C-alpha cells in the first residue's frame, strides 16, 4: 500500500490504512520529537498526540509531502509542549541533567568494545551539545543534519522563511562545533582548533 492509497483509505475511515502511515513515519516522528524535546516520555506523548491530530486533520491535508505535513504537526506539538513547560517553570527530578556514560538508545553494536566506548562517549557529548542548543536551532539542525530535510522542507515544516532557516542552521552548527571543541580529545586531530 503506497502512501497516497493509505491516505485515501484513511480518509474513508479505515483505521488500518492510517496505521500503515503511522508505522511508516513513527520512527521519524519520534526522533524529531525527541530532538526537539530532549525527553523520551514527552517525545512519546507528543508523537502519540501528533498522530491523533493528524488523523483528525487528515481531511484538511491538501496533498504534497505527507512527511513534511506530519513532521510539521509533530514539531508544532512539541513546541506547544515546550511552551507549557516554560509557563509552568517547575523542576522535576526527571529533568535534572544527568551525566550519561552512554545512552542506551544510541548503542551501535557493530563496533568493537573500545571503538564502541569512544563512540558512545562522543555520541553522548553530541547529545549534550544538542541539548545545549536553543529549541529553534535544535529543531532545524535535527531536521537538516539528522533527518536530511532540505531547506525548503524545513521552511515548510517550521513555517520559517528560507533565509531564517539558513541562518538558524548555520548558527546551530557553529554553536555545536564550539561545544564539541570543549572536549578535543574526543575529536580527530583535523577537528582541533586552528592555531596557525
Amino acid at each position, binding site marked *: 500500500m503506497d502512501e497516497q492509497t493509505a491516505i485515501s483509505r484513511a480518509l474513508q475511515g479505515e483505521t488500518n490504512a492510517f*496505521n500503515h502511515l503511522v508505522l511508516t513515519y513513527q520512527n521519524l516522528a519520534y526522533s524529531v520529537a525527541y530532538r526537539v524535546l530532549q525527553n523520551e*516520555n514527552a517525545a512519546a506523548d507528543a508523537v502519540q498526540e501528533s498522530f491523533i491530530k493528524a488523523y483528525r486533520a487528515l481531511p484538511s491535508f491538501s496533498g504534497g509531502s505527507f512527511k513534511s505535513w506530519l513532521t510539521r504537526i509533530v514539531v508544532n506539538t512539541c513546541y506547544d509542549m515546550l511552551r507549557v513547560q516554560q509557563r509552568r517553570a517547575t523542576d522535576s527530578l526527571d529533568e535534572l541533567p544527568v551525566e550519561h556514560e552512554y545512552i542506551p538508545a544510541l548503542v551501535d553494536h557493530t563496533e568493537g568494545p573500545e571503538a564502541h566506548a569512544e563512540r558512545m562517549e562522543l555520541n553522548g557529548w553530541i547529545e549534550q551539545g544538542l541539548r545545549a542548543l536553543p529549541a529553534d536551532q535544535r529543531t532545524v539542525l535535527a531536521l537538516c543534519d539528522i533527518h536530511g530535510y532540505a531547506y525548503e522542507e524545513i521552511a515548510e515544516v517550521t513555517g520559517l522563511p528560507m533565509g531564517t532557516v539558513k541562518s538558524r542552521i548555520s*548558527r546551530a552548527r557553529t554553536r555545536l562545533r564550539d561545544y564539541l571543541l570543549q572536549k578535543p580529545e574526543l575529536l580527530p586531530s583535523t577537528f582541533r582548533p586552528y592555531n596557525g
Partner: protein
Amino acid sequence: MTSSRYPQITDELLSAYIDNQVTDDEKALIEAAVIEDPMLAWQLESLRYTVDLLHTLPQLALPRSFVLSDAQLLDGAVSMPALAEPARMRAATARRAPRSAPEPGGFWVGWRNFWQVGNLFLRNAAAASLAIFLVVSVGGAVLQSQLPTSAQVAIVSEASESVPQPTIATAAPTASGAQAVALVQTTTTQATSNAETSREEAVTLEKQVELQVSAVDGSAPPTEVTPLSSANRTLPADSVQALAQAGPAAATDLAGGQGGSVTMPSDAARGGELADSPGSQPGNQDLAPPEPRAQPSQAAIAAASVGSADSFSTARSAVVTNLVATESVTAADTISTTVVISSSTAVSLTESSIVSAPVMSSLASETDAVSATLFYSAPIAEAAIQPTSNATAVPTNESNGARYQPSVDSNVVSNPLSLLRNFQFASALAALFLGVLWWRSRSTSPATR
C-alpha cells in the same frame, strides 16, 4: 567567525555551501578561499565534520508502537502532557492502566505502603481516630469494671407513650389516709435482662400485669396487686400483699429477685413533705426542688389508678431512684396495667434500692426514650442503707418528658450509654479514615508515590 581575507565568506555561507545551498559564484569563491586561507579551510572542515557527526548518530529506538486504536481515534481526547510533570503523567497512566497482580513483597510491604499512602492529614486523622477508639474502649471497660454491682441507678426517660415500663408500683395508703407510700418495685427480672425488649413484648407483658392501685385517702382499701404472670417478671404475690397491707412503718420485703427490703416510714413517705422534711439532706432541695404533682389533698401521694379510664392515657416514665420514685404513670384504659410512682412520695429504703437493668434496658429499648440516662452512684448505695434521713425527693418530671436528676449523694462516675456512643463514634471514625487510606492505597501505584 569570518575570514579576514574573505570577509564575504561567513559561517552561514559555509554552512550553506556544505548543503549545496549556494550559487555557483559563491561556490567558486569559497573553494578558492579555502585553498588560500587555512583558517577558512579549518572552519569549513570543522563544520562539515560536525554535520557528519550528526549524520552518524544512530537511530533512536522507539519506546513503543504508536499505532492508534479505535478507542483512541473515536473518543481519545488529545491530552497535553506537561514536561514539567512527568510523574503526574505517569501516575495518570498508571491509574488508567488495568490493575495487575499484587506487587511482590508480601504482607508487610503492603502494610507499609498502606500506611504511607495518602497525605499526612489523612494519616494523622486515622491515627487520632484509632487512639480515640482505644482510649474510649479501654477506658470505658475499666470504668465499668470499677463500678459497684449494686450501684444506684437513676433513670428518667422521655415519655414513652402507651408503653408502661415493666415496673410494678404500688401505692399503699396509710391508715390515716394522709400518708401514702409509693412503693417502687422494679421488676423482679434478672439484672441482666436484655435491652432488646421490644415494644410488643412490653405490651404483652403489660397485658399480663394487672395491678390496681387506688389513689385514695385514708379510707381507701389497700391496693390490690395482681402478680405478674410472667415468670421472670412476677412480683411475688405474698410480698405484694404484704406490702399492700403493711403499715407505713413496716418494712416489706420485696425480695423478689433483688433481695432488697423496703422500709416505708410514715414520716418519710409523706407526700410533698419530703423535700422539706428535716430529715432530708440540705442539698436535696437544690437538686430536687419539690414540685409535687399530686396535691396533698389528693392523698398527698400520687397514686395512679389502674384500669381507670380517666387516668392518664400516657405512661410517662418510670423513675426510679434509690430513694424516691417519681412520676405517675398510668395505663391506658384498655390495659389494666400501670406503673405508678408517686411524684411526691419519698420512699426510703433501708437497703440498697436497685433499679436494675430491666428498667434500664426497657427504657433504653424504647425508641422514644432517647434521654434515658443511667447514673451509677456508689455513694448512693451506701446512703441508701441509711434510714429516712437520706430520703431524697426527686423533682417531678415535666409533662412533656422526663428528666433525670441525680441524687445529692450521687457522684456521676460514668455513663455507659455515652461511652457506648463514643465507642461507636470512634469506631465509625476510625473505619472512615481507614477506608479512605485503603482507597488511596488501592488507587495509587507505589511507583508514583
